[in-house]
């Protein structure tokens, strides 16, 4: 499989505070890469720098677009616009991420309008296709976000991200606000969409059991550093870094006879 994204020595600090410290990793096409770490470990800052929602201080983000390799960190916002079609994001909070005053039709059409794609008939048709893809009723198009449940809103968010046919989709805690049963349905949907459309996911999460099930590779972040990366099975079965061990020891088992014995943070060599 081809490489899709290559991050090299990425750094970002907010007023003297280093939030991301020299992070490097690669993502292969059509794979799912999970980023885990506690709050404040720099996960969100890292993905925001990749998306160029913020400008990184140092390091490079190279992306293999349909038109060849591009340096995302160097491009001006005008040159970035065509690439934004290829990299999309699904947000955490299905309530905050949809404009309450826009209909679903308008929400889903907006990305097409921004990129000046098609005429209005085509756009309508595309919205209908997308709603079907995320298993929402065609009549949803005329309704406002408040008429939907959390899981349905998340489906709208997914449809909005996918309507531009992106190749890389960044999911920032996209299932953590959902109930477990709804979460399972959304994960199934993301899996099906990946199979059909050949998507690549960068999946930020703090729930390790979700990452274990959903991701091919895992990046573990701690205090802005990448402390461990590898295939999911490898990382979960044979963790190398103490922080990964601490994270794994904190997963509550479904078996009542396997009591939780979290490692003591103070006894570990974390830095």
């Amino acid at each position, binding site marked *: 499989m081809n490489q899709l994204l290559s991050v090299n020595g990425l750094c970002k600090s907010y007023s003297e505070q280093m939030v991301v410290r020299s992070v490097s990793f690669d993502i292969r096409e059509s794979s799912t890469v999970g980023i885990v770490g*506690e*709050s404040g470990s720099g996960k969100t800052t890292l993905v925001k720098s990749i998306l160029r929602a913020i400008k990184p201080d140092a390091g490079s983000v190279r992306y293999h677009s349909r038109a060849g390799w591009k340096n995302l960190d160097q491009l001006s916002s005008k040159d970035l616009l065509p690439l934004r079609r290829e990299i999309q994001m699904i947000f955490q909070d299905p309530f905050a991420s949809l404009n309450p005053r826009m209909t679903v039709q308008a929400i889903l059409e907006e990305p097409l309008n921004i990129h000046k794609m098609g005429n209005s008939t085509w756009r309508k048709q595309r919205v209908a296709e997308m709603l079907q893809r995320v298993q929402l009723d065609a009549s949803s198009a005329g309704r406002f976000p408040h008429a939907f449940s*959390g899981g349905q809103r998340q489906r709208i968010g997914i449809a909005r991200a996918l309507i531009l046919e992106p190749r890389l989709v960044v999911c920032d805690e996209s299932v953590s606000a959902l*109930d*477990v*049963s*709804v*979460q*399972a*349905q959304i*994960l*199934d949907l993301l899996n099906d969409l990946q199979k059909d459309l050949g998507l690549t996911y960068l999946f930020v999460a*703090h*729930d*390790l*059991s*979700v990452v*274990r*099930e*959903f991701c091919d590779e895992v990046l573990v972040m701690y205090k802005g550093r990448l402390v461990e990366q590898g295939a999911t099975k490898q990382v979960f079965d044979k963790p190398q870094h103490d922080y990964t061990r*601490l*994270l794994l*020891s*904190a*997963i*509550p*088992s*479904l*078996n*009542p006879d396997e*009591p*939780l*014995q*979290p490692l003591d*943070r103070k006894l570990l060599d974390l830095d």
Partner: protein
Amino acid sequence: MSDCLLSINDLSVVFKTEFGFVQALDQVSFNVPRESVTALVGESGSGKSVTSNSIMRLLPSNAKCVGGITMYPANADPIPISSLKPKDARLRRVRGELVSMVFQDPMTALSPVHRIGDQVAEAILCHRKVNNKTAWNEAATMLTRVGIPDVQQKMRMYPFEFSGGMRQRAIIAMALVCNPQLLICDEPTTALDVTVQAEILVLIKSLQKSLKNSVLFITHDLGVVAQVADRVVIMYNGQIVEEGSVRKILGTPEHPYTRHLLTSFPGAQRKQQSGSRPGNLKKAAATGADTELIWTSADHRVRRYIQ
């Protein structure tokens, strides 16, 4: 003295809203045994929090509540919580002294403008006739017990100076400082990181063992249930669908909704049964919702369902 600390009998709660009546609880009955942890499990909207708020009599004024909630405190007369008048002195005893709560969001549960030490000591001063100094010292002892280091210095700090895990520890201290016989934990770890969650769960469990109180633990995370609970009550749509020991419920669940919850749990089991779409099972549970709850053995009951 019976083994039962709290008994809920045919509790139904209806909310009057501008869109009509909403039935939040439908004839919910279960017991909370002494010195054990009972978990109340269900998705959002299943009625978990309404149940716990009914125990504290914290329902809003548009709620109509029918049914009986009786508490059997050790060495005291039973208290019919559901029929107490709002001004009854016993209600004040129930809230905070006999029953106390730990909430989901540690920042909203603490006052931002009072020092941690004063907030914990206030809980003692509200319920017992002691002077400020004794209350402060007892607060210090309890804060040490929940694992807060340099306690005298930390007690003079404000909530914003604490991390999320430390705040939740302070709230647990505040809840336990009057030695309540029932501690209600309403999703106490949902807002916390997984490593902090593990520490708090271990803390709640070990305090329950040493203080010998009962805990009613509300959650939707079955991993958490497996780690802390002795008994499990599964709720769906305002009704109990299954109740039993933690081993029975997680090992050999009988109701399709319970099985559906278990298969939704991210992990090994779902991989093996890929193809079982949770959505279909949910409908199976919903169609069984009108049928009665029957005891299958002395400590397990399940709502009958249509297969």
